[in-house]
């Protein structure tokens, strides 16, 4: 069935779906922190993400200008000391709007990936652990979702549901669910046949207990890597949808709709399009760096 090779949709997924590292005994969190810090890219990613989250949380307190304040006399003003990133066609401060725009992007990304993790991982765990008809049904359903290009499916869902924030979360969440189902299922399949699971079963442990105590800890590594990479894709999806007019609606600033508005004045006021794009790039880069680093850390075969 396609399931076997279709795992290769993105390079990241293929790596992530490989078996996790064998469980280490007696290794505490300090050991992991040391290894994390020794990694070249993951700490940089974490710093970028931490800073973005901090900015998003504090944005209303730190923005130099009211994001709704229009200043017609200063419309399309180039970057200056008053307006760090210049102003848009209504004279609103682009810097303040970029800072505030981080809120929608991050909230939608975190919520949608959280939904995808919970739904996808549960489906994958159950499918992998119990196998049989339930497994076949779940994975065929995931194949169907995978048969639609991610952004197109999100566009179609938004077109049908309408452009509310919660719908963005639903649309992006659905699109990224199959990846978690596959990653979790693949990890379960490799772990399920290992000796300690047999031993647990022989000791008379119930399925629920085995899943909680033995399967989930081993599924955690590949899922963590996938979370970081999915967050980067979710940010890109949200901004693309908002760019197309199907996501966050003006006047609420999001990086995608700022870019869409700024595009009309690309030639005379490029700063309107340049800065939101850089913001997207930096945050997405942060998640990619963290994801790459975590993969190196958790899947030692890939070095």
């Amino acid at each position, binding site marked *: *069935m*396609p399931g076997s*090779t*279709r795992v*290769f*949709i*993105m*390079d990241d997924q293929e790596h992530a779906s490989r078996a996790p590292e064998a469980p280490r005994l007696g290794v505490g969190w300090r050991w992991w922190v040391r290894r994390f810090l020794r990694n070249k890219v993951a700490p940089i990613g974490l710093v970028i993400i931490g800073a973005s989250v901090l900015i998003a949380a504090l944005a209303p307190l730190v923005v130099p200008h009211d994001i709704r304040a229009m200043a017609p006399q200063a419309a399309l003003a180039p970057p200056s000391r008053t307006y760090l990133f210049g102003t848009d066609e209504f004279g609103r401060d682009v810097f303040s709007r970029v800072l505030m725009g981080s809120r929608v992007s991050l909230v939608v990304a975190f919520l949608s990936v959280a939904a995808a993790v919970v739904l996808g991982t549960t489906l994958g765990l159950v499918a992998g652990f119990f196998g049989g008809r339930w497994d076949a049904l779940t994975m*065929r*359903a995931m*194949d*169907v*979702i995978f*048969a*639609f*290009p*991610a*952004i*197109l*499916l999100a*566009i*179609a*869902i938004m*077109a*049908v*549901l309408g452009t509310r924030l919660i719908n963005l979360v639903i649309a992006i969440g659905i699109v990224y669910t199959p990846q978690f189902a596959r990653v979790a299922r693949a990890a379960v399949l490799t772990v399920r046949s290992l000796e300690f699971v047999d031993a647990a079963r022989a000791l008379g442990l119930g399925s629920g207990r085995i899943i909680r105590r033995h399967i989930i800890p081993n599924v955690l590594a590949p899922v963590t890597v996938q979370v970081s990479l999915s967050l*980067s894709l979710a940010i*890109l999806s949200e*901004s*693309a949808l908002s*760019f*197309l*007019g*199907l996501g966050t609606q003006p006047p609420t600033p999001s990086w995608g709709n700022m*870019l869409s508005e700024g*595009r009309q004045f*690309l*030639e005379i006021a*490029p700063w309107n*399009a*340049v800065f*939101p*794009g850089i913001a*997207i*790039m*930096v945050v*997405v*880069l942060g998640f*990619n*760096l963290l994801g*790459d680093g975590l993969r190196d850390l958790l899947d030692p075969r*890939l070095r």
Partner: protein
Amino acid sequence: MQRYLASRLLALIPVLLGILIVVFLLIRLIPGDAVQLFLGTQVEMTPAQMAELRRFFGVDKPIYAQFLDYLGRVVRGDFGVSLRTSRPVLGDIMQRLPLSFQLASLALIVATVLAIPLGIASAVTRNSLFDVATRIGGLLGLSIPNFWLGAMLILVFSRYLHVSLGQYVPISQDPLGTLQSLYLPALALGAAIAAILMRYVRSSLLEVLGQEYVRTARGKGLRASAVMLRHALPNAMIPVITVIGFQMGYLLGGTVVIEEIFALPGMGRLVLQAIFQRDYPVVQGVVLIVALLFVLTNLVVDLLYAWIDPRIHYG
């Protein structure tokens, strides 16, 4: 191989059915039924007239019967008519499809041409300055939103380089003109794919270079270039082919965004326009066609993979 082909085609059936169910149900999620959508809000009708129209459109039947109707029509190539222009949906899509397909293909070519040499060079000079620079470039390529890259290309080329991008002309009229109008959009669309492929080529080649048969080849005194060309590269490229094929989905989806920013009259702009006009049969048609195209390209890639890789024998 024939049996493998048959089994792959057979395995497609549930996926195709699932796609049709999703596309069919998608439209059912909209509040109001097809008749109300068709009429819009301006037309006043008596309940009797509404019921008559519902019977006419077949939406008074139970949902599974409606799905079977839909299935029957799609199989016969009837994708319905546009609610705005009353033209058959399939005809409109087919008119717009070539542009999107050319754009996606060109993007794939651009990405491959960029990624393979860079990935190989990066693997061969592992941990050199070049390797580090290429890897950083790869990470940036993965992180740049394609529509922003498109906007920046437009900005640089038209404002600073004074290059006109040109209107799209069909490939049958002027292939060079087509290329001229599509190379920048293809670059914007292909950049992320180039980054993914490059990383893949690099890690695949590094893995192969660590294999024993490569050491053996070196050990028996083959020149480095012969080891690379005869032993390492062919084996490293096999998984890369699969990855190339699976990017078609990203590319087909990405054309929607790229066509919008470069104002290209392809399938993507057709679907966006349809969404904003609430012309749902067109939306349904485009989503279905793109999903079918994606599934078919995946099938072709799978078959290609089975044909190329001598280790895989499908009963």
